[in-house]
């Protein structure tokens, strides 16, 4: 026994090292599964609040751009107001309220922390479960797509950015309607790739890429970016397309969290298909 204690104390340095390394690997493995741990991530109380304080200061520097963006959106909304429409056919127009039902609800929020230089980038946002935010909701900004909500605490949520190697979203070419999937690789935070567009589709530089709306996370038609260049490898059936994001992910400020009313219904229906297969 005494020999054992002497042995341990003699090599205590190595044992402490192995012990701590073991702990950190446990952290790593448990945490790698999309930041499962609630305490040790940037949406926790201490660091979340620190970030929002710092962000309050940072916001002043971006006021000009944000104002311009808001003004632009105001103008857009203004044009959609009922007052700007004139009746053409007099009293014969038939209004039927049941024609439309609401599909998406937007919650405005502020990005308080953001990264663009890692393989897996996350954004922290100042709305949480108290505001009705749940994991899996989409996040967009007036200029385009931002990401998907991954973890939610009471007052904050962390969003898996579109700049995340494992976040593939379904994208559509606005002109032709073909659907591909959008992936981003570490390197340039302004550029991403669109895969699975077959080689017979006619493409042009500057074509707009929008969301397809298939997954119901994002509404259909939210802008993602424009085609920067594309090429066709010999013998390949699919294009390599590089697109440039319409959002500058380094200057995120005001964003909208999108809640889909019909997501659950659609998922239930689609799950039926899988059940019948078995």
């Amino acid at each position, binding site marked *: 026994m005494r020999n054992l204690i002497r042995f341990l104390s003699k090599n205590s340095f190595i044992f402490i090292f192995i012990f701590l390394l073991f702990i950190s690997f446990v952290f790593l*493995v448990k945490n790698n599964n999309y930041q499962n741990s609630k305490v*040790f991530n940037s*949406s926790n109380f201490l660091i979340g609040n620190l970030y929002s304080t*710092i962000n309050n200061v940072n916001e002043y520097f971006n006021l000009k751009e944000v104002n311009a963006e808001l003004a632009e959106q105001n103008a857009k909304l203004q044009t959609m107001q009922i007052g700007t429409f004139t009746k053409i056919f007099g009293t014969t127009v038939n209004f039927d309220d049941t024609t439309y039902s609401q599909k998406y609800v937007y919650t405005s929020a502020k990005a308080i922390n953001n990264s663009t230089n890692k393989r897996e980038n*996350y954004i922290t946002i100042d709305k949480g479960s108290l505001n009705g935010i749940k994991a899996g909701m989409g996040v967009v900004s007036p200029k385009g797509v931002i990401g998907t909500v991954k973890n939610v605490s009471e007052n904050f949520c962390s969003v898996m950015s579109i700049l995340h190697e494992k976040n593939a979203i379904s994208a559509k070419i606005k002109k032709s309607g073909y659907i591909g999937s959008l992936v981003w690789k570490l390197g340039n935070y302004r550029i991403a790739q669109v895969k699975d567009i077959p080689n017979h589709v006619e493409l042009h530089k500057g074509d707009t890429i929008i969301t397809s709306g298939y997954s119901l996370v994002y509404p259909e038609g939210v802008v993602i970016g424009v085609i920067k260049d594309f090429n066709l490898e010999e013998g390949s059936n699919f294009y390599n397309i590089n697109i440039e994001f319409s959002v500058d992910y380094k200057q995120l400020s005001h964003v909208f969290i999108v809640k889909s009313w019909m997501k659950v219904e659609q998922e239930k229906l689609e799950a039926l298909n899988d059940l019948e297969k078995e």
Partner: protein
Amino acid sequence: MIYDILKYCGLFILLVLIQGLMLNNVEIGGYVVPFLYVVFILALPFDTPNWLVLILGFILGVFIDCFVSTLGMHTSATLVMAFCRAYLLKLITPRGGYEFNSKPNIQHMGLTWYLLYAVVLVFIHHMFLFYIESFKLTQFFYTFGRAISSTFFTVVLILIVQLFNYTSTTKV
């Protein structure tokens, strides 16, 4: 002694804040990120017990990880670096051993010694960090390039920090 402990506590907090709030937002050419916070492990005095270096490295890593929600990555990398520090210090002991009460900095040890010390440890830290982050060998050279270029920038930052230290202590 008490003064030293307070000084290192201050340095710890300062480095965590600088790294978490400023340097994590820096990126050069798309993939280079400087990690200045490792200078804390480099700056600990020679007579710090080895186990303490390990534990400090661990705590420092946890703090940095909290900022970027990657618990474990910086923790393990800093821990490995703290572990290697003990052996490296033994390996590059100057003739006659370390002077009592001297600290590892350019002033006491000279530029060549310090550069060797800093570059080796920072490189170990960055290699470990970037390979843990990518967790695969398919992009071996890409990750390797990232580690090397980031090491370069971190060491440049560390030298700049040392320069601050230099002027303030020569005045006294």
